[in-house]
Structure formats: structure tokens, C-alpha cells
């Protein structure tokens, strides 16, 4: 009974925050509200028994994406001066979309009813076969890395592409006269250094955040965790350090060449494990052929693949943040 009250509350809050984001004119408030939106989404996922996804949404949705939005806001105009355009096109298309979905959803299975089609076809096989074939407690990591490992390979390259894009767009640091003035940006970043207390506490916390990230990375088989969450956490630690100390100190901590090397090596590691399985005679990404004992092969395969994902996501998040931070200072 309690979970019903809980989810009702969280879902209604979600809609309220979304409407608040739509109505607010100040961009800064909209970004902060979108951070709260992601956090509420993470809480929702936890109530719906999806711990892995809640952790990912909290780290990447609330953490990294808010920092990226703030970085972009620092480089562009603060205020959203334009009043919302009152044309009927968006209204019509949005309500048509909503009507179609509500029409379709009325026949959807009720939330949580056990004999829905979804729970009786592919899912029981995964829950039954994971202890037997892969022997890993966290079924989500097993499905993510092994049963549907090809999906996650594609996923690593989506993150790799985001890094390519940001490097291609913001990589070349050419002085632009009408970008944000140097003194104004200098003034803002110096202010952060003035905060003595946050700097001390931040410096104390950064090692523990990175340590927790590494724990999540290698603990992914046994509890909620894995490459994506670990990458986000470690990057959050480094970003916190660069936020407090100023981004040129951050770049001394994790230099540019190192983070882009991390990106490339992570992707190569994942694809390399796949090719190694082919060389040993199995299908692409079939870890059972890596060693004589297939279960050992699966364990090592999943560990390496999650490490590749963690490296790539960490590298990408750090490179993207530094690309935004460095863009302001010429």
C-alpha cells in the first residue's frame, strides 16, 4: 500500500516539474528544474524495482547532463527573453500525440499484473538461465553484457560518437571576437576559487567519489552497477574537482590526451573482446569460447566488457566537460 502512495506522489511531482520547466522563462531555473526532473525520474525507477536504471539516471541524468547544460549556459545568453510563441501548431501536434497514446494505452496490461505478456515470454528464460549459464547474481548486467552484448557495443559507440561530435564542434579553440568576453568569464570562474569551504570539503570528497565509482564498476556483477554508472561517477568526481579548482587545474589532473586515449581504448577493448571471441572460433561476442570453462569465460568477458564501457564513458564525460569549460577561456 505504501508503494502506491509513494509512486502516485512521485509521478505527480514529475508532471508538475515538467510543466514548471515548460512555463519558466529563466533558463537557469529551467536547467535546475531539469536536474530535479531527472532525480524524480531516478526515484520513480527505484520504486519500480529498477535499481540499475535508477543509479544511471541519477548519475547521468541529474549529474552530468545538468553540468553540461550549465556549461553551455555559461557560454550563451542567460535569460530566455522570448515569450512563448502562441501558434496553434505545437498545441495541435502535442495533443494529437497525447490522444493517440492514451487511445493505445487503454488496452495496455495493468501495472504489475503478473500474467502480462511481457513477463511470460523472454524474461523468465533470462531469470532461469543466468545462474546456470553465466552464474552472475545481477541478471541485468548479465543480459546487458552477454545476452545482448551487441546492443551495448552499439551503445559504447554512441557515446564514442558524442565525444567525436563535441571534439569536432568545440575542439578547435580559435579566438572568436563576439563570443563571451574574456573578463566576464574570468570573473565568474575566479569566484569559484574564492569559496574556501566548498573547496576544502570538495577536495576531501573527490577521492571517495572516485573510489565509489571504481567500486560500482567492479561490483556490477553482484549488485546494481556497471560500466555506465561507474563512468558517470568517476567523471562526476573529476568534474567536481575542476569546478572547484578551475578547469585549467582540472586539465592538469586529467590531461586532454589521457581522456581521449581513454575513450578510444575503451571502445577498442570492447570490440577487441568481440574479435577475440571470433578468433577463438565462437560467434562475435561469445565469451564462452575464451576459456575452457564457459562460465569462467563469461565472467572474464563480462568484466572486460564492463571495463571497456567504464573507460569510454569516463573519458567521454571528462572530454566533453573540458571542451565546454575551455571554450570560454581563450
Amino acid at each position, binding site marked *: 500500500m505504501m508503494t502506491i502512495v509513494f509512486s502516485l506522489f512521485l509521478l505527480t511531482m514529475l508532471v508538475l516539474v515538467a510543466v514548471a520547466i515548460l512555463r519558466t522563462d529563466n533558463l537557469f531555473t529551467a536547467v535546475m528544474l531539469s536536474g530535479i526532473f531527472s532525480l524524480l525520474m531516478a526515484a520513480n525507477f527505484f520504486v519500480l524495482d529498477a535499481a540499475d536504471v535508477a543509479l544511471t539516471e541519477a548519475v547521468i541524468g541529474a549529474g552530468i*547532463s545538468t553540468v553540461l547544460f550549465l556549461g553551455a549556459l555559461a557560454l550563451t545568453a542567460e535569460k530566455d527573453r522570448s515569450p512563448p510563441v502562441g501558434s496553434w501548431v505545437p498545441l495541435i501536434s502535442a495533443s494529437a500525440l497525447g490522444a493517440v497514446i492514451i487511445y493505445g494505452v487503454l488496452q495496455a496490461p495493468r501495472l504489475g499484473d503478473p500474467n502480462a505478456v511481457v513477463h511470460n515470454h523472454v524474461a523468465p528464460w533470462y531469470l532461469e538461465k543466468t545462474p546456470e549459464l553465466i552464474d552472475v547474481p545481477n541478471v541485468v548486467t548479465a543480459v546487458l553484457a552477454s545476452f545482448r552484448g551487441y546492443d551495448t557495443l552499439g551503445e559504447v559507440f554512441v557515446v564514442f560518437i558524442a565525444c567525436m561530435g*563535441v571534439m569536432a*564542434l568545440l575542439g578547435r579553440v580559435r579566438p572568436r571576437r563576439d563570443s563571451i568576453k574574456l573578463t566576464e568569464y574570468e570573473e565568474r570562474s575566479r569566484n569559484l576559487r574564492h569559496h574556501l569551504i566548498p573547496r576544502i570539503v570538495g577536495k576531501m570528497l573527490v577521492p571517495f567519489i572516485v573510489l565509489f565509482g571504481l567500486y560500482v564498476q567492479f561490483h556490477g556483477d553482484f549488485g546494481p552497477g556497471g560500466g555506465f554508472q561507474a563512468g558517470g561517477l568517476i567523471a562526476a568526481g573529476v568534474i567536481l574537482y575542476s569546478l572547484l579548482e578551475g578547469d585549467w587545474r582540472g586539465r592538469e589532473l586529467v590531461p586532454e590526451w589521457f581522456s581521449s586515449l581513454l575513450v578510444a581504448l575503451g571502445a577498442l577493448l570492447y570490440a577487441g573482446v568481440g574479435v577475440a571471441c571470433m578468433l577463438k572460433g565462437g560467434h562475435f561476442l561469445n565469451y564462452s569460447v575464451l576459456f575452457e570453462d564457459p562460465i569462467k569465460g563469461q565472467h572474464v568477458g563480462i568484466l572486460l566488457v564492463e571495463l571497456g564501457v567504464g573507460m569510454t564513458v569516463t573519458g567521454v564525460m571528462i572530454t566533453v566537460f573540458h571542451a565546454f569549460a575551455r571554450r570560454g577561456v581563450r
Partner: protein
Amino acid sequence: MELLGLYNYFVFAVLLMVGLYCILARTNIIKSLIGLSIFQGAVFLLYISMDKIDGGTGPIILEGAPADTIYANPLPQVLILTAIVVGISTTALGLAVAVRIREAYGTIEEDKIQEMDREQ
């Protein structure tokens, strides 16, 4: 859970409408990108509300667990882990383009940009 019924899916529909309206109605580029992330966030809710089972726990099979515990469906969670990272990648790319547009045009309001393009 019976009471909750389809409430999750109605919230999904409302979030999609809010996201799409925010993208199309607002002319500020960064506001449209926030709308886009709400639009994508709504789809996560659709998938994850499919994986809930009454009395089920997270799909982590510990050694000591009794044999008949019900576990939530792991498949939508795997799909959504992928979709979240797709969302953040699109946002990062969109923000990079927004910064470049601000430098090239001096503004991130779509209507002003269209006027500048028309003059050219």
C-alpha cells in the same frame, strides 16, 4: 498495485505532450534541448513501468534467496540503460551546436537566427 493501473502510462503520455510542446513552442535553443530531454525521459518511464511485478524485487538473484521469490523483468532495464546514454549523447551534441551557433550568430533565439539567414 491494482489501484495504480494505468496511471504510469497516462503520466508518460502527459510528459510526451509537455516535451513536444516545449520543443516546438519555445524558440530558445537551450529550452528546446531541455524539452527534448524531457521527451526522451518520458519513454524511459514507458519501458520501466512494464517491468514491475506485484511483490517482485530487483532482478538480483542472491545465493540465500528462497526459490520462489518473484523478480522484476530485466529486459526493459537493459534497453533503458542504453536509451539513457543515447539521450545524454544527443544532449551533449545539441549543446555543442548551440554554443557554436551562439558564437556564429551572437544569439540562440531561433526567430532572430532565421531573420539573419533571410537577409543573407
